[in-house]
Structures are given as C-alpha cells and as structure tokens.
C-alpha cells in the first residue's frame, strides 16, 4: 500500500493530484521505465523461494479451480437437461396445458384485439410485469449514470482535461471514412426497421423491446460514425431524461386507468378497433411505443456513458 494512497484515505490531500502531476511530467523515457521494470520482475521471479511459492500456490489453486469449475458445470448441465426433458416435444399435439395458456390462446384475440398473441400477453394480461421491466432498465441507467457520469460536481477540472487529452482522442472513431459511408447507408434503414417493428408490435412478431433495441443500436452506430458532436445538437441529456420520464409516466397512467376501471367494473372507453388494422388493439400500440422509447434511450445512454461519461451535451 503506498504512502500517498494512505494519506488520501485519511483525507489529507487528493490522491489524483499526484497521479495527474506524474502523468503530465516529462519524467524518464518509456524505454528506461520498461527496462527497469523488467529487471525488477526478473530479479523477483528468479529467486528460488519465490519460484517454489508460486509453483505450490499454482498447483493447489489450479486443481481446486478445475475441480470446482467442472463440478458446477456438470451440475448445471444436469439440472438444465432434466428441466428440458420435461417439456413437450416441438410441435407435439395434445399437450397438457393449464387454463391460463388456454385462455390466452382461445380468448386472446377478442379480449385484447391484438393479432400477435405475445404482444397481447405482455402488454395487456401481464402489463404490470412489463412496467416493472421498463423501470428496471430505467433504474439501471440511473445507476450507471451515478457511477460513470463526469460533470463539474463529480470530478476535478484537471482530471477532465486529463481524460480529454489521453482518452478521447485515442478512442475517437468518428471521422473514419469507411464507418461514415456504411453509417450513411445503414442507419436510416435500421431506424426504419426499428420503427416498423415498434408500430407493428400488435400485428407481427416484435414489439416494444425488440424495436427499441434496434433503434438504440442504430443510434450507437450513428454516434460511432459521426461523433458525439452531431448527436449533442439534437439529443441532449435533458431531452433524453424528459423523454424517458414522459414515456414511463404515460405507461403508468394508461395502465392505471385500465386497472382502475377493470377492478371497479367500470366501462373501459378505449376502443379495440378491428383486429389486423394498424390502429387497433386498444392500448397495446401506445404502450409498445412507450416501452420502445425507454429501451432505445437506455441503450444509447449506456453506450454514451461508457464511452465518455455523459449523455449528450449538458
């Protein structure tokens, strides 16, 4: 444990001050440092005592590691195979089902109005679960923001300069001509595909989560190809936060209305429409959109926070 770190623990001075000072110093050249480190390491490694210690420690730990790893893998495989063997065969007739499954399959279309039974399930019968999932994503984004966000309150200004110099230039892929060319062609197509999946969630396979993930991936590709500056002009952190907040609260209110009317046996005023039309299935289409927006913002937020520590411009 080095001394400055202990002093930093006691609160005497900032640990990063010294790190920063060292990093900006000219100091000894890279070759000298490398040669010194190599000499030191070889001196340590080649003492017989160290070699014996390493060999003994390695042997016991390695055997233990292999035994435990193989055992846990075999147990896990056994449990999974046992569970799978209990499932009906793919495409088998006369599968024994419980009444929940039968209800979903037989009355799903007339009760939810969604041609895609899966969407009817996750956004109508089990909409409360989906709300929880969206909130889990939002919470994850908040946690990542707390951990990785860099702003005035969260860091030293000198540290910011350090990161900007050492990291951003090194990681920057924007301005690459191949990436930009591919991005110009791909990004609009992927965006359109994502919107298509979102809007057809109640008619065809897909829905909120898939569409949102595709749109998030498109945003990440755009950001990688054209840099954060272009994204910052439109998609700021404030906007991202408001969009996610609005989508989640819309979801809560819409489902709250449905739960309230359903539980009190009141009349539900949301029209079901004709099954198969784009504006049908009651609340499923707007809820799909809300979930998709939350997922897309979260995906892009993760990438943006991992890359440089903030979503959009401040």
């Amino acid at each position, binding site marked *: 444990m080095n001394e400055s770190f202990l002093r930093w623990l006691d609160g005497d001075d900032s640990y990063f001050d010294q790190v920063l000072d060292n990093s900006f110093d000219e100091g000894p050249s890279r070759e000298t440092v490398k040669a010194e480190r190599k000499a030191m390491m070889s001196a340590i490694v080649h003492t017989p005592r160290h070699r014996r210690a390493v060999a003994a420690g390695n042997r016991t730990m390695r055997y233990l590691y292999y035994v435990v790893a193989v055992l846990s893998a075999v147990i896990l495989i056994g449990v999974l195979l046992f569970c799978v063997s209990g499932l009906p065969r*793919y495409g088998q007739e006369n599968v024994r089902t419980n009444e929940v499954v039968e209800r979903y399959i037989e009355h799903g279309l007339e009760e939810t109005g969604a041609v895609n039974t899966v969407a009817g399930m996750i956004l109508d019968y089990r909409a409360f679960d989906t709300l929880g999932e969206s909130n889990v994503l939002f919470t994850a984004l908040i946690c990542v923001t707390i951990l990785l966000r860099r702003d005035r309150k969260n860091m030293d200004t000198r540290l910011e300069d350090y990161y900007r110099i050492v990291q951003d230039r090194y990681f920057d892929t924007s301005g690459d001509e191949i990436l930009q060319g591919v991005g110009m062609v791909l990004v609009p197509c992927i965006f359109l595909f994502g919107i298509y999946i979102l809007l057809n969630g109640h008619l065809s396979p*897909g829905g909120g989560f*898939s569409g949102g993930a595709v749109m998030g991936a498109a945003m*990440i590709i755009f950001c990688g190809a054209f840099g954060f500056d272009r994204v910052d002009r439109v998609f700021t952190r404030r906007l991202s936060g408001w969009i996610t907040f609005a989508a989640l609260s819309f979801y809560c209110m819409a489902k709250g209305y449905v739960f309230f009317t359903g539980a009190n046996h009141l009349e539900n005023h949301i029209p079901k429409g004709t099954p198969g039309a784009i504006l049908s299935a009651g609340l499923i289409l707007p809820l799909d959109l809300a979930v998709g927006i939350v997922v897309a913002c979260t995906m892009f937020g993760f*990438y943006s926070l991992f890359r440089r520590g903030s979503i959009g411009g401040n």
Partner: protein
Amino acid sequence: MDLTEIFKILIMIVMIICAIATNLTKKLLTTVIIFMSYSSLMCILWILLESPDLAITEAAVGAGVTTILFLVTLKKLGHTGGNEEEKEAGHE
C-alpha cells in the same frame, strides 16, 4: 431427418464449441468476439424455432449492444491489444 434438422444440429454443435471456447481463450478481446458469434448463431436458431421476435432482440442486444459495451470497456481498460506494451507482453 430433413435438411433443417441437420442444420439445427450443426448450429447447436458449433454453439457448444463457442461456449466452451469462450471460457478457454486467454485474450479478453477474443472472448468477446467468440461470444458475439455465439449470439449470432443463437439468433439463427431462434428463427429456425419460429420465434422471429426473439431473433431480432438477440441480434440487436446479444450480438450488437452487449458486444459494443464489452469492447468499449475493454478499450478503456487497455485490453484490446492495440497498444505496444500489450503486444510486447504477449511475446514475452
């Protein structure tokens, strides 16, 4: 046994190989790439099992976003093998 069945079994065998290789490779970058190919194979398998919605999600999240997040993290940690010291350490 028709062609689709054989194709499915082939994909599953390659997936098992990928899963084992993910554990056994030493370099983290290789691990991430193998994991991505595992996800892509899984995506094809979902289509063969007639659940395209899962296939879309797998392609976007499993093969796309997860891999990108892993790569960004590895690059921040300096494990991509792009800089000189890594290469020299590899040769020693």
